[in-house]
């Protein structure tokens, strides 16, 4: 049973989705899309957002058919129980991987920009413990935390880019759509890593109070994420051009470094951006962390998720340290987003959708006879 105090509103779901999706991907997104689609990055992000919206709504539709159950429970009814358990285990693993990847990328960035002499292990473990502290208290505080962090993340980042407006060269977005569709779809695929996060909808449905408003909430969350990404991609590609963008690891940070604030006494805003970005990553980490732990506790049918919060820390810590360099981190991130994410975002919803329809028609057939 779900306790009454663990329910959140549709608005909160909307904000939680946004803060979950906006995470480590924001740093490398412009470079990722530039690599494949060149000047059409903006359109690729847009297309990626629309596709994400479609699949998010599909997942939502699936969950709404089983309003009191999470994925772990309802998938058993659609696919058989052993397969459901298998998928759920992979889902736990999948969320855990995202925590590890995010925390590792966070550690790497922090090490380069802020703390060159601090060992990355310390950064990772402190971040994990800070997240564990929040995750232990459950969904309601997590949703509230996202509500607090949302304006802190969005407002400064939107404002910080404005002084760079005059440097944008619109010709950087030309030629318009002169690439093959296959390449474009591949580029779209590369945006997945940035849009990953709405899979939490698989599990979220039974915890929402006003489920009727959930559709609007999901729309708002994914469209605003898309616009936010497009805003950043617009500035990065607009200023650097796609050729320069794709050579960089984190074009987002390079752009921040290059912006000058003649009026402020702070000459470069790296410190501020690092602070905001810490929150951005934090909000993704705790969300993935919570849903990993929640899925696991649902698998074992325990009443409280909090038993597994602390034991998860060493696992995530060790997983975060597996890649030996930042290049390998992104290689793994690429694998995960191209195979696992595509499975969970696209293939699984379609599969479950078909199974649901088949089963429903089977049921009604049985009723008829």
């Amino acid at each position: 049973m779900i306790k009454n105090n663990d329910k959140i509103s549709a608005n909160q779901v909307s904000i939680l989705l946004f803060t979950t999706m906006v995470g480590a991907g924001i740093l490398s997104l412009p470079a990722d899309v530039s690599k494949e689609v060149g000047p059409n990055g903006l359109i690729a992000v847009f297309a990626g957002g629309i596709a994400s919206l479609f699949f998010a709504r599909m997942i939502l539709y699936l969950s709404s058919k089983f309003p009191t159950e999470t994925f772990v429970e309802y998938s058993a009814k659609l696919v058989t129980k052993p397969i459901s358990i298998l998928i759920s285990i992979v889902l736990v693993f999948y969320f855990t991987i995202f925590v590890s990847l995010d925390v590792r990328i966070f550690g790497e960035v922090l090490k380069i920009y802020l703390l060159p002499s601090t060992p990355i292990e310390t950064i990772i473990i402190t971040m994990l413990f800070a997240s564990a502290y929040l995750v232990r208290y459950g969904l309601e505080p997590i949703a509230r935390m996202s509500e607090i962090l949302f304006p802190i993340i969005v407002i400064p980042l939107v404002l910080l880019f404005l002084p760079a407006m005059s440097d944008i060269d619109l010709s950087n977005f030309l030629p318009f759509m002169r690439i093959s569709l296959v390449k474009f779809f591949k580029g779209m695929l590369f945006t997945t890593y940035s849009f990953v996060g709405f899979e939490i909808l698989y599990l979220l449905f039974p915890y929402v109070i006003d489920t009727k408003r959930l559709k609007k909430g999901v729309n708002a969350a994914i469209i605003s994420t898309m616009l936010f990404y497009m805003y950043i991609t617009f500035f990065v590609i607009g200023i650097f051009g796609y050729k320069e963008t794709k050579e960089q690891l984190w074009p987002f940070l390079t752009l921040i470094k290059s912006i000058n604030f003649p009026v402020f006494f702070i000459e470069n805003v790296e410190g501020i951006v690092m602070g905001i970005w810490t929150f951005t990553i934090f909000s993704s980490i705790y969300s993935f962390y919570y849903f990993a732990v929640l899925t696991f506790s649902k698998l074992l049918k325990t009443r409280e998720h909090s038993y597994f919060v602390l034991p998860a820390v060493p696992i995530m810590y060790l997983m975060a340290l597996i890649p030996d360099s930042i290049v390998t981190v992104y290689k793994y991130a690429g694998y995960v987003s191209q195979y696992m994410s595509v499975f969970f975002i696209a293939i699984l919803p379609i599969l479950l959708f078909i199974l649901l329809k088949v089963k429903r028609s089977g049921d009604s057939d049985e009723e008829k006879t």
Partner: protein
Amino acid sequence: MGFFDKIFGKKEVRKKKDGMPSSPSLKQNLDYIKNKLKDCDDVIYRDIWVGENQQYNLAIVFIDGLVDKDLINDHVLHSLLLDSRQANPSIEKIKGNLYEVIKKGTITGGDIKEITDLDKCILSILSGDTALLFNGSPEIVIISSKGWQMRSISPPEAETVVRGPREGFTETIRVNTALVRRWIRDPNLKVKQIQIGERTHTDVAVLYVEDIVDRNVLNKVMERLKNIKIDGVFESGYIEQLIEEDWHSPFPQILNTERPDKVAASLLEGRLAILTDNTPFALIIPTTLATLFQSSEDYYERWMISSLLRILRFLAAIVALISPAVYIAFTAYHPGLIPTKLTLYVAATRQGIPFPAFFEALIMEATFELLREAGVRLPVPIGQTIGIVGGLIIGQAAVQAGIVSPLMVIVVAVTAVASFAIPNYSAAIAFRMLRFTFMILAAVFGLYGIMLGFMILLTHLVVLKSFGVPYLSPFVEIDISDLADTLIKAPIMYFKNRPEILNTPDRRKMRDLRGEKIESIEDDRRDGNDKK
């Protein structure tokens, strides 16, 4: 029969627990009281004989110093001993009915009640009432005669305002409830009084407006108050700590105030207030972080300046929280993140300072806390001297001696001033304490440490609740109309509803003035047309 025995037996036991029933014999009653109040030399017993032949024996008992002597002399003794002689009721009427006659016709005191329980009688005497005992009847008349030396109403010291009423609560609960009543002349303003403290029997009043308050919160408060089993409560701080949700937290989950206008305004918002006898501090429930930054003056001044001051206060809280930590982080870890000129200046001023930035900051902040604490303890004139000696001379000498950098002194001073800009003292304490945690984190992890501190602090705050209301609301579980009274204070016309978070049954606070005006004008016109 055994069944009934059980019930009656139980009832008898209960009655005994309730107290000692008084007997018709005056001597017996007096002996009981005297025995209970043995060795209490401040209790005064006065035997009175009235009647034509002085045949009726009465006694009054009160505690010297707690009662209004004039009231007893004029309205009890004078009436009984002198005025009653002038009246000439028939002896038959009086005979055997003395008690009724005296109670109804003789005593001119305003507030009297009768009881037949000696223990309750003793409690009333101890609270400052006067007991009038009769020979021949078990009833005891309790005359409300509380009147001790008390501080007169004076301006609240911790919450002064430029514009606004100058009244502050006093130490007497009756005066305090009256001060609130004077603001709200509504029969729905309820004052529920209970006594807490098995020895102190302190009067505690819960104030609320019946059709506005959230019943769940009220029940929760009453339940928690009734569950307090302690020998004594002193100051509302006792009650605050005994009924709050999370005692681990450095943040006050219950607001305290000395201002009746603030209490009245909170009551109309749908909160409830707890007044405690013997203290001028009222408690307001539920409290959120945003209310700690509200000063009652915000609502009396124009909205623009109030909004600016609100923003300033929130900034002040952040400055008080992290400015020494930021200093440590930037000097020790990230000199590259501040402008080159400033970096060079900081480096130059820190030349020759033997301590790392963290210890430098710790020494200065600890010194400042020391000065503040010493300043509180010292008598007012010397306290100021200490302020000057400590603040100016020690600061100056420390810089000249090369122990701390001048920038550090500025940081400490700014932090100190900022922490005073938070209107609520208890909230300011929380930020002052957490400052040291942030300093340690900054010393270990630099800027990341500060962010880490914020993550942990925010986690604590999002988990925290005050009587079921999230502590960070309305920033969480967002309601746009509630946000108008947080970081900014919108013009008063916008506060049409009570705060959503308080879950009040009657949400409307103000009707749409303009809409009503137009309606009434239209009504007038229509009436006019009809007449034509």
